[in-house]
């Protein structure tokens, strides 16, 4: 499924998690090379500002205008209510996805027949564009929070299911055998061998699930068009207010990075035993 703990945030590769493959040699970066990333970001920001100033059209406001707008929105507090709604939706949806995803994933990983029965459907749901379910939820629940939460759950559950199932299934047989050799029962094997060894890959799924949950939240809210940050984006879009659209998008990106960062911290705590070289 997924593959190395990507350097920054999002990307994961299995080889580095299981650590079975030789650790890729990372050439040491010279000092100035380390600076290339930030410099490139800075250059992008300057270019944005300059082009925005030069064009002077409402659809492409300069960076300063966007940040100014974001400051205003935060200062006068209008955005905070929407932010709170969005974050609440996200928290509920992601929590439900976690419970669902982990349970189903462990079941599929442990019981071969459950996996055989459900794997294609889980894969189908993973590849399906989840937002198509939004109109269905909307007909059922209208503007209720459940509509958004439902979209978030659909966005984030299935990647967690698949990674968890895969992780549980691929727990090292030699360790399971070792435990059996000392007379361990199923519960001991699951609790002390399978789940710990599955944790890195499970957390990779959880991290992807978190990123997807944020997308589900925004996309769902944009579909419903009147609640949360997504609603603000839609309203601003209708009013041709690009400054607000970009300001809110900036906020959403910060939110997304924060969520991923939180999951990453949790991941590091749960998998502190992984050798540092396997994180790269």
């Amino acid at each position: 499924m997924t593959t190395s703990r990507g350097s920054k945030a999002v990307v994961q590769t299995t080889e580095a998690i299981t650590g079975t493959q030789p650790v890729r040699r990372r050439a040491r970066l010279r000092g100035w090379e380390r600076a290339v990333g930030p410099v490139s970001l800075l250059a992008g920001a300057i270019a944005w500002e300059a082009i925005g100033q030069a064009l002077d059209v409402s659809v492409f406001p300069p960076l300063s205008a966007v940040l100014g707008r974001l400051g205003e929105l935060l200062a006068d507090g209008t955005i905070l209510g929407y932010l709170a709604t969005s974050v609440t939706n996200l928290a509920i949806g992601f929590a439900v996805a976690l419970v669902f995803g982990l349970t189903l994933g462990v079941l599929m990983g442990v019981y071969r027949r459950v996996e055989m029965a459900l794997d294609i459907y889980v894969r189908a749901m993973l590849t399906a564009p989840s937002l198509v379910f939004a109109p269905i939820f909307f007909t059922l629940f209208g503007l209720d929070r459940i509509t958004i939460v439902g979209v978030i759950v659909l966005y984030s559950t299935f990647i967690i299911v698949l990674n968890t199932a895969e992780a549980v299934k691929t727990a090292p047989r030699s360790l399971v055998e070792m435990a059996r050799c000392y007379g361990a029962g199923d519960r001991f094997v699951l609790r002390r061998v399978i789940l710990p060894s599955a944790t890195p890959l499970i957390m990779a799924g959880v991290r992807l699930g978190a990123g997807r949950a944020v997308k589900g939240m925004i996309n769902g809210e944009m579909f419903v068009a009147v609640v949360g940050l997504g609603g603000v984006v839609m309203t601003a879009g209708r009013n041709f207010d690009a400054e607000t659209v970009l300001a809110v998008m900036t906020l959403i990106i910060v939110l997304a990075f924060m969520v991923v960062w939180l999951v990453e911290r949790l991941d590091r705590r749960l998998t502190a035993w992984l050798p540092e070289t396997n994180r790269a």
Partner: protein
Amino acid sequence: MIEIKGLNKYFPGRGRSEPVQALRDVDLTIRDNEFLTILGPSGCGKTTLLRNIAGLVPWDTGEILVDSQPVRGPSPERAMVFQNFALLPWSTVLANVAIGLEIRGEPRGPREAKARELIERVGLSGFEDRLPGELSGGMQQRVGLARALAVDPSVLLMDEPFGALDEQTRRLLQEELLRIWEQTPKTVVFITHSMEEAVLLGDRIVLMSARPGQVDDIIEVPLARPRSQHINELGESPEFASITTHLWTRLRSMQVLNT
């Protein structure tokens, strides 16, 4: 005493292919407190035989008796040491060594005391709180050995335990294993690919031939005990040379037959 009588083991073939016979009519009696080494070409069923004795996998026909009791599943009486160490990477050395006792339901205090004692015996004092990933291969296998010894088994099953180690570490661990075995005798079934190792460690060597795996010959090793102090001299001795030559002749004839 371990008695293996008429053991046959098949693995189902993939898809529609024929089942593979891994063991054919294996008869073998292993004496109490004997150090038995098993030597044979790759894929001849050594691991399979050991896992059968451990009770980890079923066989098709025949029986295995340990002290006249048929083997029905794993038992703490028969501890195993694995080629790839099989340590829990998320648990400390101490917890790894204690795991057999933990599974058996021993309370924390006594099991950790016992684990510490064994960690000391394999020369790892001071590393109790390290994780396996922080240890060298040789140290990891010492942990594996300590873990097996911690449950006080009467039989130690070892599947190429030193196969993944470098020459020097391997020699050190051989000496250490012999020392421990001389102090607290127990039955050891030791699989190896190395003729020298088979001779230096074993009272008897079981030669297996491949496809399907069967006992080809059993050879008594005429080297005197205790050996732990003078492994090096033994390695130079004429008895050692003649027996390895003999083994090599036998093994080579099997390879020729195989190819």
